[in-house]
């Protein structure tokens, strides 16, 4: 037989060999996987040595935590707002509802050419929101013209832009926390709701919960006796948006201070003051740079407590570092900084240190400043959490392997008992295993993180795979020996009709799970569908070739 005829006759078998070889190299050759960009990083952690294959493991087999929760927020869209009114509307609504600046966002959506307003606060009702918009004279654009906003216009959701920002912020926070491999993504539910899912290997549930609960809205608030009749009052003088550069958590030996150094934005539009100039002016106006220098004693650094309950006569000029609703630090303006602000020189080189009590505070302040505030808080009353310790995850890895091996042994045993013919049974088992190898190789190549649900999928694939091989074997050996290629081909084709039909139904039955967001089950469905496809297209035809070679007398 010439080489061409050989290939023509056994192409199905050759295809299987090619695929198994490719799968094995995807599994075992280091650095084979697509987009393998973190090999360097892995080497630092020495995980490459521990893992003999290129398989990636998901949370359930690696250890870590996952939290899914929907964002809190309401949206009104299609609003009649002029571009230059955006900020006014934002602050009008925010003040009417008594919220912080981060809790109200006005967005222009270029694609649809419309405005939305979002409120991110659990305690605000739909009618309060609508009322605030009415008070601000903002109307809804309709086909017929513009009309007043009502409670019915308020939707219980946040915009896609907000969710995208949240995911970005969360990913930045995970990276700042120094953990690799964490991800955040969104998942849509049937009701059109969106859940934000965060997964971080190597974290506990509590740690992840803490990372996500903090809104991380950092502000500098001036506490000074500039209110009515000399009462003390709070004015927000700097927000995250005013800062252009943020350093890392640092320690100053000379003063024994933990701090994060910050540069305030000194660029501005024509004819307007830059944020740095605004800040400088506010400091001068409130008296921080004159009578208030060094006048702040409300913080007890030893006990880490703040005392806002001092007599009105005891005048205080404090710069409060606030994260969300908590005061982290309160300190006066120092001499040097006060002098350079007083002379209006500081704004030309606007950097300062945000001083905090402990190293831990400095670190979390830096994380919050770098990642920015979470656009909307997450609703933990409607969450789902999963966490598993690395030790238990390792156990599960062993168990999965053991359960998989036991299942394959069982299947092999039954097949041997049934056929009692090595020529039929051995290739059958080998083919079923080849299917799993190809599937594993595929998973390694696309770097699909494997979880317990995928393991269940692999075992299901072995099950359906052997079913189909039994059909092929029985069909081909039907009615006595196979003595010609023509007989073989016709019987094989008949068997293939059944297999194809069965595969089509399995794929149809599994596809809802692959599409719907039902937690772990997506992995199971995807592996099962892939397995059935690989089986029908590659391995099961090849088994036909093997049987033909063994049964027809050539």
């Amino acid at each position, binding site marked *: 037989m010439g080489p061409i005829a050989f290939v023509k006759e056994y192409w199905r078998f050759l295809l299987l060999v090619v695929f198994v070889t490719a799968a094995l190299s995807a599994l075992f050759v280091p650095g084979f996987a697509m987009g393998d960009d973190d090999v360097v990083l892995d080497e630092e952690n020495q995980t490459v040595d521990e893992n003999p294959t290129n398989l990636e493991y998901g949370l359930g087999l690696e250890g870590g935590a996952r939290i899914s929760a929907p964002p809190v927020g309401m949206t009104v869209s299609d609003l009649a707002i002029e571009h230059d009114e955006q900020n006014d509307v934002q602050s009008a609504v925010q003040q009417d509802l008594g919220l912080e600046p981060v809790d109200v966002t006005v967005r222009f959506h270029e694609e649809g050419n419309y405005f939305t307003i979002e409120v991110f606060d659990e305690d605000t009702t739909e009618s309060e929101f609508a009322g605030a918009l009415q008070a601000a004279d903002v109307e809804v654009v309709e086909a017929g013209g513009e009309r007043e906003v009502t409670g019915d216009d308020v939707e219980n959701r946040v915009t896609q832009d907000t969710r995208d920002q949240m995911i970005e912020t969360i990913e930045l926070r995970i990276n700042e926390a120094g953990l690799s491999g964490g991800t955040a993504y969104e998942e849509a*539910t*049937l*009701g059109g*709701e969106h859940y934000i899912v965060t997964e971080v290997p190597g974290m506990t*549930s*509590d740690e992840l919960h803490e990372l996500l609960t903090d809104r991380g809205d950092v502000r500098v608030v001036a506490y000074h006796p500039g209110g009515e009749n000399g009462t003390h009052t709070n004015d927000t003088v700097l927000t995250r948006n005013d800062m252009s550069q943020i350093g890392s958590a640092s320690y100053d030996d000379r003063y024994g201070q933990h701090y994060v150094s910050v540069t305030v934005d000194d660029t501005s539009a024509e004819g307007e003051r830059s944020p740095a100039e605004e800040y400088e002016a506010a400091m001068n106006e409130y008296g921080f740079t004159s009578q208030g220098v060094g006048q702040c004693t409300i913080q007890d650094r030893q006990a880490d407590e703040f005392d806002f309950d001092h007599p009105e006569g005891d005048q205080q000029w404090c710069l409060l570092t606030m994260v969300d609703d908590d005061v982290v630090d309160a300190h006066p303006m120092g001499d040097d900084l006060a002098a350079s602000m007083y002379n209006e020189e500081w704004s030309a080189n606007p950097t300062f240190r945000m001083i905090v009590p402990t190293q831990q505070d400095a670190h979390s302040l830096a994380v919050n400043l770098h990642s920015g505030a979470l656009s909307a808080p997450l609703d*933990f009353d*409607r*969450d*789902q*959490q*999963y*966490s*598993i*310790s690395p030790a*238990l995850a390792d*156990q*599960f890895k062993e*168990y*999965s392997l053991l*359960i998989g091996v*036991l*299942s394959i042994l*069982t*299947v092999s045993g*039954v097949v041997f*008992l*049934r056929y009692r013919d090595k020529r039929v049974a051995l290739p059958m088992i080998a083919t079923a295993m080849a299917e799993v190898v190809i599937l594993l190789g595929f998973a390694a190549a696309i770097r699909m993180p494997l979880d*317990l*649900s995928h*393991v*269940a999928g692999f*075992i*299901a694939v072995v*099950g*359906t795979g*052997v*079913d189909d091989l*039994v*059909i092929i074997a*029985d*069909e081909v050996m*039907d009615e006595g020996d196979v003595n010609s290629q023509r007989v073989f081909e016709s019987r094989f084709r008949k068997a293939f009709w059944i297999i194809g*039909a*069965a595969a*089509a*139904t*399995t794929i*149809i*039955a*599994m*596809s*809802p*799970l692959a599409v719907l*967001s*039902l*937690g772990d*089950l997506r992995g199971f*469905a995807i592996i*099962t569908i892939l397995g059935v496809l690989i089986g029908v297209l590659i391995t099961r035809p090849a088994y036909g070739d093997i049987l033909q070679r063994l049964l027809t007398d050539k």
Partner: protein
Amino acid sequence: MGTFDVPDIEYTRYSSRQLLAVPLAVLAVALLVLGGTFVMTGAPVPLGMDFAGGAQLTVQTTSADAEIQDAFTVEPDSIQAVQAPDVDNQYTIQFAGVEDDDVISDLATQAEANLAQDGDASIVQSESTASASFAEQAQQTALLGIAAAFVGMSVIAFLLFRTFVPSIAIVASAFSDMVIPLAFMSVADIPLSLGTVAALLMLIGYSVDSDILLNNHVLRRQGDFYESTHRAMRTGITMTVTSMMAMLVMGITASLFGVELLASVGIILFVGLAADLMNTYLMNVTLLRWYKFHGVRS
């Protein structure tokens, strides 16, 4: 070494009514069980934490069973010791149907506080919680998934055979194959989880395999009905029994090891495949026989 031979049923000795009586009676009992449970509890099968809200903890502790039972403000639904090699003092604890999310998120803290630590291993090894609203949403999604899978399967069945009786036989058998394991779950008090839903969907695939095989042999090939049926049975029973054995081994080992997902997939598929044997070779064969001898002419 034993042998594995496919049994031979003398179909000619039984009337259609006799053959159909068994699967229909089992199906009726299963539906009664599901209906009864629904009336009593508001759900046809016990709902696990995935669908009712609640928590599942895996803990490593030297505390005794009774102490674990008392460690929480909510009474656990079940406490199961993990029986894997090299593992001692490990338990999985289930809480289903907890409505209050604060209570749910507090369970892990209670475990840390009230259970005795085993060496230096952390007490809570794994924690999985679902709030009531998340669970409700998952429930709807799962129902839709099952419905979509079932409808899709029915459409394919009709497209493949394009005749009413053989197609409806496939659909009926798949329906019964899902209802019987559901009733089994209700009786054996196995809660419906994501894993069991996956198993039910997988069952649709497995169930249709043997039905298609049977229909194909009887309808698309020439030859005597009983001869065709016999050949289809030989292949079909081999298939189903092989899968059943694999699932049984997986179900037993996984439940000993405390790998809940794999355990429920294994056990439900085992029961479902057993139901499939009965449905395919008593119900479908009878329907096909009726169709072959009476239905075609009309």
